[in-house]
Protein backbone atom coordinates (compact mmCIF):
# COMPACT_ATOMS: atom_id res chain seq x y z
CA UNK A 1 0.00 0.00 0.00
CA UNK A 2 1.42 3.35 -0.91
CA UNK A 3 1.50 5.78 1.95
CA UNK A 4 -0.88 8.71 1.78
CA UNK A 5 0.35 12.25 1.73
CA UNK A 6 1.18 13.07 5.36
CA UNK A 7 -0.57 16.44 5.23
CA UNK A 8 -3.67 14.68 4.01
CA UNK A 9 -3.39 12.09 6.75
CA UNK A 10 -3.23 14.80 9.39
CA UNK A 11 -5.85 16.88 7.63
CA UNK A 12 -3.71 20.03 7.47
CA UNK A 13 -2.61 22.30 4.62
CA UNK A 14 0.95 21.90 3.33
CA UNK A 15 1.71 25.41 4.58
CA UNK A 16 0.39 24.68 8.09
CA UNK A 17 2.45 25.96 10.99
CA UNK A 18 4.25 23.61 13.36
CA UNK A 19 1.67 24.44 16.01
CA UNK A 20 -1.23 23.58 13.69
CA UNK A 21 0.40 20.31 12.76
CA UNK A 22 1.01 19.42 16.38
CA UNK A 23 -2.58 20.23 17.28
CA UNK A 24 -3.93 18.16 14.40
CA UNK A 25 -1.73 15.24 15.33
CA UNK A 26 -2.77 15.34 18.97
CA UNK A 27 -6.41 15.43 18.08
CA UNK A 28 -6.12 12.41 15.78
CA UNK A 29 -3.75 10.52 18.06
CA UNK A 30 -6.07 10.90 21.04
CA UNK A 31 -8.87 9.40 19.05
CA UNK A 32 -6.90 6.51 17.58
CA UNK A 33 -4.25 5.66 20.14
CA UNK A 34 -4.20 1.84 20.22
CA UNK A 35 -3.96 1.64 24.01
CA UNK A 36 -7.07 3.80 24.25
CA UNK A 37 -8.86 1.59 21.71
CA UNK A 38 -8.20 -1.99 22.79
CA UNK A 39 -9.39 -4.55 20.28
CA UNK A 40 -9.84 -2.00 17.52
CA UNK A 41 -7.53 -2.99 14.66
CA UNK A 42 -8.70 -0.13 12.53
CA UNK A 43 -7.70 2.43 15.13
CA UNK A 44 -4.29 0.79 15.37
CA UNK A 45 -3.74 0.97 11.61
CA UNK A 46 -4.91 4.56 11.54
CA UNK A 47 -2.65 5.43 14.46
CA UNK A 48 0.35 3.99 12.64
CA UNK A 49 -0.46 6.04 9.59
CA UNK A 50 -0.91 9.16 11.69
CA UNK A 51 2.33 8.54 13.58
CA UNK A 52 4.25 7.96 10.34
CA UNK A 53 2.83 11.14 8.82
CA UNK A 54 3.62 13.14 11.92
CA UNK A 55 7.11 11.71 11.96
CA UNK A 56 7.76 13.33 8.58
CA UNK A 57 6.09 16.69 8.95
CA UNK A 58 7.06 17.32 12.59
CA UNK A 59 10.75 17.09 11.69
CA UNK A 60 11.90 20.31 10.02
CA UNK A 61 14.48 18.59 7.90
CA UNK A 62 12.29 15.67 6.82
CA UNK A 63 9.41 17.98 6.14
CA UNK A 64 11.58 20.15 3.91
CA UNK A 65 12.86 17.10 2.06
CA UNK A 66 9.33 15.81 1.61
CA UNK A 67 8.17 19.21 0.40
CA UNK A 68 11.05 19.27 -2.09
CA UNK A 69 10.05 15.82 -3.26
CA UNK A 70 13.25 14.19 -2.10
CA UNK A 71 11.45 11.59 -0.06
CA UNK A 72 7.99 10.23 -0.56
CA UNK A 73 5.37 9.77 2.12
CA UNK A 74 6.68 6.35 3.05
CA UNK A 75 10.33 7.16 2.41
CA UNK A 76 10.93 8.07 5.96
CA UNK A 77 8.51 5.71 7.53
CA UNK A 78 9.15 5.31 11.17
CA UNK A 79 10.41 1.87 12.01
CA UNK A 80 7.83 -0.27 13.74
CA UNK A 81 7.88 0.15 17.49
CA UNK A 82 10.39 -2.44 18.58
CA UNK A 83 8.62 -2.95 21.88
CA UNK A 84 5.25 -4.41 22.65
CA UNK A 85 2.52 -1.97 23.49
CA UNK A 86 0.90 -1.76 26.89
CA UNK A 87 -2.29 -3.36 25.73
CA UNK A 88 -0.37 -6.47 24.72
CA UNK A 89 0.22 -7.01 28.43
CA UNK A 90 -2.87 -5.39 29.82
CA UNK A 91 -5.22 -7.71 27.95
CA UNK A 92 -3.66 -10.77 29.54
CA UNK A 93 -2.65 -12.05 32.94
CA UNK A 94 0.22 -9.51 33.39
CA UNK A 95 -2.38 -6.77 33.30
CA UNK A 96 -3.81 -8.04 36.56
CA UNK A 97 -1.06 -6.09 38.28
CA UNK A 98 -3.11 -3.05 37.37
CA UNK A 99 -6.47 -4.58 38.14
CA UNK A 100 -8.98 -1.87 38.82
CA UNK A 101 -10.28 -1.82 42.39
CA UNK A 102 -13.00 0.49 43.52
CA UNK A 103 -10.71 1.47 46.40
CA UNK A 104 -8.72 3.34 43.75
CA UNK A 105 -11.62 5.64 43.26
CA UNK A 106 -14.16 5.54 40.56
CA UNK A 107 -16.04 2.29 40.05
CA UNK A 108 -19.78 2.80 40.18
CA UNK A 109 -21.51 0.40 42.50
CA UNK A 110 -23.03 -1.89 39.92
CA UNK A 111 -19.57 -2.33 38.45
CA UNK A 112 -18.41 -3.39 41.88
CA UNK A 113 -21.02 -6.15 41.84
CA UNK A 114 -19.81 -7.22 38.45
CA UNK A 115 -16.25 -7.53 39.67
CA UNK A 116 -17.40 -9.27 42.84
CA UNK A 117 -18.99 -11.94 40.66
CA UNK A 118 -15.65 -12.61 39.01
CA UNK A 119 -13.72 -12.49 42.26
CA UNK A 120 -16.14 -15.04 43.69
CA UNK A 121 -15.70 -17.21 40.64
CA UNK A 122 -11.95 -17.00 40.93
CA UNK A 123 -12.04 -18.10 44.57
CA UNK A 124 -13.73 -21.30 43.47
CA UNK A 125 -17.47 -21.68 43.11
CA UNK A 126 -19.40 -22.69 46.21
CA UNK A 127 -20.18 -26.40 46.28
CA UNK A 128 -23.83 -26.01 45.33
CA UNK A 129 -23.02 -23.89 42.29
CA UNK A 130 -20.61 -26.22 40.64
CA UNK A 131 -23.17 -27.51 38.15
CA UNK A 132 -22.38 -24.69 35.74
CA UNK A 133 -23.50 -21.21 35.05
CA UNK A 134 -27.05 -20.44 36.18
CA UNK A 135 -28.87 -18.66 33.42
CA UNK A 136 -32.20 -16.98 33.15
CA UNK A 137 -34.35 -18.46 30.39
CA UNK A 138 -34.95 -16.46 27.24
CA UNK A 139 -37.98 -14.22 26.87
CA UNK A 140 -40.53 -15.56 24.40
CA UNK A 141 -42.43 -13.25 22.08
CA UNK A 142 -46.01 -13.78 20.99
CA UNK A 143 -48.66 -11.67 19.42
CA UNK A 144 -52.36 -11.79 20.19
CA UNK A 145 -55.03 -10.16 18.06
CA UNK A 146 -58.14 -9.04 19.86
CA UNK A 147 -61.24 -7.22 18.63
CA UNK A 148 -61.85 -3.57 19.29
CA UNK A 149 -64.54 -4.05 21.93
CA UNK A 150 -62.30 -6.36 23.95
CA UNK A 151 -59.52 -3.78 23.84
CA UNK A 152 -61.84 -1.28 25.53
CA UNK A 153 -63.51 -3.53 28.07
CA UNK A 154 -60.62 -5.87 28.81
CA UNK A 155 -60.94 -9.63 29.10
CA UNK A 156 -59.21 -12.84 29.97
CA UNK A 157 -58.11 -14.80 26.97
CA UNK A 158 -56.33 -18.06 26.32
CA UNK A 159 -53.21 -18.17 24.24
CA UNK A 160 -52.44 -21.68 23.04
CA UNK A 161 -48.78 -22.56 22.76
CA UNK A 162 -47.40 -25.85 21.53
CA UNK A 163 -46.77 -27.15 25.02
CA UNK A 164 -49.20 -25.24 27.20
CA UNK A 165 -51.89 -22.61 27.33
CA UNK A 166 -51.30 -19.17 28.70
CA UNK A 167 -54.06 -17.29 30.45
CA UNK A 168 -53.71 -13.68 29.41
CA UNK A 169 -55.44 -10.91 31.31
CA UNK A 170 -56.05 -8.09 28.88
CA UNK A 171 -56.39 -4.82 30.77
CA UNK A 172 -59.30 -2.55 29.83
CA UNK A 173 -58.17 0.19 27.45
CA UNK A 174 -55.17 -1.73 26.08
CA UNK A 175 -53.68 -0.11 22.99
CA UNK A 176 -52.68 -1.56 19.68
CA UNK A 177 -49.00 -2.53 19.87
CA UNK A 178 -48.89 -2.61 23.66
CA UNK A 179 -46.79 -5.42 25.11
CA UNK A 180 -47.95 -7.45 28.08
CA UNK A 181 -45.32 -9.22 30.13
CA UNK A 182 -46.15 -12.49 31.85
CA UNK A 183 -43.41 -13.01 34.38
CA UNK A 184 -41.81 -16.43 34.41
CA UNK A 185 -43.83 -17.72 31.45
CA UNK A 186 -40.94 -17.64 28.97
CA UNK A 187 -38.29 -20.27 28.32
CA UNK A 188 -37.19 -22.37 31.27
CA UNK A 189 -34.02 -21.25 33.09
CA UNK A 190 -30.80 -23.20 32.66
CA UNK A 191 -29.09 -24.94 35.57
CA UNK A 192 -31.74 -23.73 37.97
CA UNK A 193 -31.74 -20.15 36.77
CA UNK A 194 -35.04 -18.25 36.74
CA UNK A 195 -37.47 -18.59 33.84
CA UNK A 196 -37.71 -15.90 31.18
CA UNK A 197 -40.88 -13.92 30.58
CA UNK A 198 -43.53 -14.22 27.91
CA UNK A 199 -43.94 -10.95 26.04
CA UNK A 200 -47.27 -10.65 24.29
CA UNK A 201 -47.79 -7.95 21.74
CA UNK A 202 -51.43 -6.92 21.50
CA UNK A 203 -52.87 -6.26 18.07
CA UNK A 204 -56.28 -4.62 17.98
CA UNK A 205 -58.35 -5.43 14.90
CA UNK A 206 -60.00 -2.38 13.35
CA UNK A 207 -63.69 -1.85 14.02
CA UNK A 208 -66.20 -0.85 11.32
CA UNK A 209 -67.64 2.03 13.38
CA UNK A 210 -65.17 2.96 16.07
CA UNK A 211 -61.74 4.53 15.78
CA UNK A 212 -59.28 4.97 18.60
CA UNK A 213 -57.20 8.11 18.96
CA UNK A 214 -55.14 8.06 22.13
CA UNK A 215 -57.64 7.35 24.86
CA UNK A 216 -60.54 8.79 22.87
CA UNK A 217 -63.00 6.88 20.75
CA UNK A 218 -64.40 8.42 17.59
CA UNK A 219 -67.49 7.32 15.72
CA UNK A 220 -69.80 8.56 12.99
CA UNK A 221 -73.33 8.81 14.29
CA UNK A 222 -76.10 8.64 11.66
CA UNK A 223 -79.10 10.88 12.45
CA UNK A 224 -82.34 11.43 10.64
CA UNK A 225 -83.17 14.67 8.92
CA UNK A 226 -85.73 15.41 11.60
CA UNK A 227 -83.19 14.83 14.42
CA UNK A 228 -80.75 17.09 12.67
CA UNK A 229 -83.21 19.93 12.19
CA UNK A 230 -85.34 19.63 15.28
CA UNK A 231 -82.89 18.07 17.72
CA UNK A 232 -83.77 15.23 20.05
CA UNK A 233 -82.54 12.42 22.21
CA UNK A 234 -80.74 9.52 20.57
CA UNK A 235 -79.13 6.39 21.91
CA UNK A 236 -75.45 5.95 21.09
CA UNK A 237 -74.13 2.39 21.21
CA UNK A 238 -70.59 2.61 22.66
CA UNK A 239 -68.16 -0.21 23.49
CA UNK A 240 -68.75 0.42 27.17
CA UNK A 241 -72.54 0.38 26.78
CA UNK A 242 -75.26 2.48 25.24
CA UNK A 243 -75.66 6.06 26.40
CA UNK A 244 -78.32 8.54 25.53
CA UNK A 245 -77.32 11.86 24.09
CA UNK A 246 -79.18 15.04 23.24
CA UNK A 247 -78.71 16.39 19.75
CA UNK A 248 -79.17 20.14 19.70
CA UNK A 249 -81.63 21.52 17.17
CA UNK A 250 -80.14 22.49 13.82
CA UNK A 251 -77.12 20.17 13.90
CA UNK A 252 -75.42 19.76 10.57
CA UNK A 253 -73.49 16.80 9.25
CA UNK A 254 -69.97 16.98 10.64
CA UNK A 255 -70.95 18.45 13.98
CA UNK A 256 -68.91 16.74 16.71
CA UNK A 257 -70.52 16.01 20.05
CA UNK A 258 -68.44 14.94 23.01
CA UNK A 259 -69.43 12.25 25.48
CA UNK A 260 -67.20 12.93 28.42
CA UNK A 261 -65.55 9.93 30.06
CA UNK A 262 -67.00 7.46 27.56
CA UNK A 263 -63.70 6.68 25.83
CA UNK A 264 -61.09 4.06 26.65
CA UNK A 265 -60.25 3.42 30.31
CA UNK A 266 -56.77 4.63 31.22
CA UNK A 267 -56.02 2.19 34.01
CA UNK A 268 -55.95 4.89 36.69
CA UNK A 269 -59.73 5.01 37.01
CA UNK A 270 -60.15 7.80 34.50
CA UNK A 271 -61.18 7.41 30.87
CA UNK A 272 -60.84 9.22 27.59
CA UNK A 273 -63.84 10.74 25.86
CA UNK A 274 -66.04 9.59 23.02
CA UNK A 275 -66.64 11.89 20.06
CA UNK A 276 -69.65 11.40 17.83
CA UNK A 277 -69.53 13.04 14.41
CA UNK A 278 -73.05 13.54 13.16
CA UNK A 279 -73.99 12.32 9.73
CA UNK A 280 -77.40 13.29 8.40
CA UNK A 281 -78.98 10.37 6.57
CA UNK A 282 -81.94 10.82 4.24
CA UNK A 283 -84.72 8.25 4.21
CA UNK A 284 -83.75 5.16 2.30
CA UNK A 285 -85.26 4.89 -1.16
CA UNK A 286 -86.52 8.46 -1.04
CA UNK A 287 -89.67 9.89 0.44
CA UNK A 288 -92.28 11.35 -1.97
CA UNK A 289 -93.76 13.63 0.70
CA UNK A 290 -90.42 15.05 1.63
CA UNK A 291 -89.68 15.65 -2.04
CA UNK A 292 -93.01 17.33 -2.53
CA UNK A 293 -92.45 19.50 0.53
CA UNK A 294 -89.10 20.66 -0.75
CA UNK A 295 -90.45 21.41 -4.23
CA UNK A 296 -93.13 23.62 -2.69
CA UNK A 297 -90.80 25.07 -0.10
CA UNK A 298 -89.67 28.59 -0.88
CA UNK A 299 -87.20 29.45 1.87
CA UNK A 300 -87.62 32.90 3.41
CA UNK A 301 -83.90 32.87 4.14
CA UNK A 302 -82.16 31.27 1.14
CA UNK A 303 -78.67 29.95 1.92
CA UNK A 304 -75.67 29.13 -0.16
CA UNK A 305 -73.56 26.21 1.12
CA UNK A 306 -70.88 27.12 -1.40
CA UNK A 307 -70.21 30.37 0.32
CA UNK A 308 -66.67 30.38 1.47
CA UNK A 309 -65.58 27.81 -1.13
CA UNK A 310 -65.14 30.29 -3.95
Amino acid at each position, binding site marked *: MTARNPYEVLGVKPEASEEEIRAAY*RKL*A*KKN*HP*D*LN*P*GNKEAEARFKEIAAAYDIVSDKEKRARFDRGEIDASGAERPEHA*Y*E*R*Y*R*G*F*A*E*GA*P*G*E*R*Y*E*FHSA*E*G*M*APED*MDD*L*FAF*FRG*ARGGAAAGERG*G*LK*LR*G*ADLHFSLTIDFLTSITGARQQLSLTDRTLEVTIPAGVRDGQILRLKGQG*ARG*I*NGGPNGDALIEIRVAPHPFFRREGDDIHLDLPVTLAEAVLGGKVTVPLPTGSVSMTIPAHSNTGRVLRLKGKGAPRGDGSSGDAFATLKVVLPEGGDPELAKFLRDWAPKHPYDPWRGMT
Partner: protein
Amino acid sequence: MIGFDAVLRLIGDLQAEELRRWIAERWVRPESDPQGYVFHEVDVARVRLIRELRYELAIDEEALPVVLGLLDQVYSLRRHLARLHAAIDEQPPELRAALRARLGEEKGGVG
Protein backbone atom coordinates in the same frame (compact mmCIF):
# COMPACT_ATOMS: atom_id res chain seq x y z
CA MET B 1 12.63 -7.82 34.98
CA ILE B 2 14.80 -4.75 35.08
CA GLY B 3 15.71 -2.04 37.54
CA PHE B 4 14.98 1.68 37.74
CA ASP B 5 18.02 2.91 35.81
CA ALA B 6 17.57 0.33 33.11
CA VAL B 7 14.05 1.59 32.55
CA LEU B 8 15.32 5.13 32.10
CA ARG B 9 17.96 3.94 29.63
CA LEU B 10 15.41 1.85 27.75
CA ILE B 11 12.82 4.57 27.43
CA GLY B 12 15.13 7.51 26.94
CA ASP B 13 13.90 11.08 27.17
CA LEU B 14 12.54 10.54 30.68
CA GLN B 15 13.92 12.10 33.87
CA ALA B 16 14.51 9.96 36.96
CA GLU B 17 12.68 12.50 39.06
CA GLU B 18 9.61 12.25 36.89
CA LEU B 19 9.51 8.46 36.95
CA ARG B 20 9.89 8.58 40.74
CA ARG B 21 6.88 10.87 40.93
CA TRP B 22 4.82 8.51 38.76
CA ILE B 23 5.69 5.69 41.11
CA ALA B 24 4.84 7.81 44.14
CA GLU B 25 1.47 8.58 42.55
CA ARG B 26 1.04 4.83 42.00
CA TRP B 27 0.52 5.33 38.27
CA VAL B 28 3.30 2.80 37.82
CA ARG B 29 3.61 0.10 40.45
CA PRO B 30 6.88 -1.80 40.13
CA GLU B 31 7.76 -4.35 42.77
CA SER B 32 10.58 -3.59 45.14
CA ASP B 33 13.36 -5.75 46.49
CA PRO B 34 16.36 -4.83 48.68
CA GLN B 35 18.27 -3.58 45.63
CA GLY B 36 15.46 -1.24 44.59
CA TYR B 37 12.56 -1.28 42.15
CA VAL B 38 11.92 -4.26 39.93
CA PHE B 39 10.01 -3.52 36.71
CA HIS B 40 8.12 -6.26 34.90
CA GLU B 41 7.45 -5.97 31.18
CA VAL B 42 3.97 -4.70 31.86
CA ASP B 43 5.39 -1.94 34.06
CA VAL B 44 7.84 -0.86 31.38
CA ALA B 45 5.07 -0.80 28.80
CA ARG B 46 2.99 1.26 31.19
CA VAL B 47 5.79 3.78 31.66
CA ARG B 48 5.94 4.11 27.87
CA LEU B 49 2.20 4.55 27.72
CA ILE B 50 2.22 7.26 30.39
CA ARG B 51 5.07 9.03 28.62
CA GLU B 52 3.07 9.00 25.38
CA LEU B 53 -0.06 10.20 27.11
CA ARG B 54 1.85 13.01 28.82
CA TYR B 55 4.00 14.27 25.97
CA GLU B 56 2.59 13.10 22.64
CA LEU B 57 -1.06 13.46 23.58
CA ALA B 58 -0.47 16.41 25.94
CA ILE B 59 -2.56 15.00 28.78
CA ASP B 60 -1.52 16.92 31.88
CA GLU B 61 -0.88 15.43 35.30
CA GLU B 62 -4.27 16.60 36.56
CA ALA B 63 -6.11 14.61 33.93
CA LEU B 64 -3.73 11.67 33.80
CA PRO B 65 -5.10 9.75 36.82
CA VAL B 66 -8.58 10.01 35.35
CA VAL B 67 -7.38 8.61 32.04
CA LEU B 68 -5.41 5.84 33.73
CA GLY B 69 -8.33 4.98 36.00
CA LEU B 70 -10.64 4.64 33.04
CA LEU B 71 -8.07 2.64 31.11
CA ASP B 72 -7.61 0.29 34.05
CA GLN B 73 -11.36 -0.19 34.16
CA VAL B 74 -11.50 -0.93 30.46
CA TYR B 75 -8.69 -3.47 30.64
CA SER B 76 -10.11 -5.05 33.80
CA LEU B 77 -13.42 -5.47 32.02
CA ARG B 78 -11.74 -6.87 28.93
CA ARG B 79 -9.79 -9.41 30.98
CA HIS B 80 -12.98 -10.45 32.75
CA LEU B 81 -14.82 -10.64 29.46
CA ALA B 82 -12.09 -12.82 28.02
CA ARG B 83 -12.40 -15.16 31.00
CA LEU B 84 -16.15 -15.20 30.66
CA HIS B 85 -15.74 -16.00 26.99
CA ALA B 86 -13.37 -18.86 27.78
CA ALA B 87 -15.76 -20.17 30.44
CA ILE B 88 -18.68 -20.08 28.02
CA ASP B 89 -16.64 -22.00 25.46
CA GLU B 90 -16.37 -24.86 27.93
CA GLN B 91 -20.13 -25.10 28.47
CA PRO B 92 -22.44 -27.66 26.84
CA PRO B 93 -23.69 -26.77 23.32
CA GLU B 94 -27.23 -26.26 24.58
CA LEU B 95 -26.11 -23.54 26.95
CA ARG B 96 -23.91 -21.90 24.33
CA ALA B 97 -26.83 -21.85 21.91
CA ALA B 98 -29.10 -20.33 24.54
CA LEU B 99 -26.52 -17.64 25.20
CA ARG B 100 -26.11 -16.88 21.52
CA ALA B 101 -29.85 -16.61 21.13
CA ARG B 102 -30.07 -14.34 24.15
CA LEU B 103 -27.34 -12.11 22.76
CA GLY B 104 -29.06 -11.94 19.39
CA GLU B 105 -26.29 -13.54 17.38
CA GLU B 106 -28.38 -16.28 15.89
CA LYS B 107 -28.89 -14.47 12.61
CA GLY B 108 -25.68 -15.83 11.10
CA GLY B 109 -27.02 -19.38 11.26
CA VAL B 110 -24.75 -22.25 12.17
CA GLY B 111 -21.38 -20.70 12.81
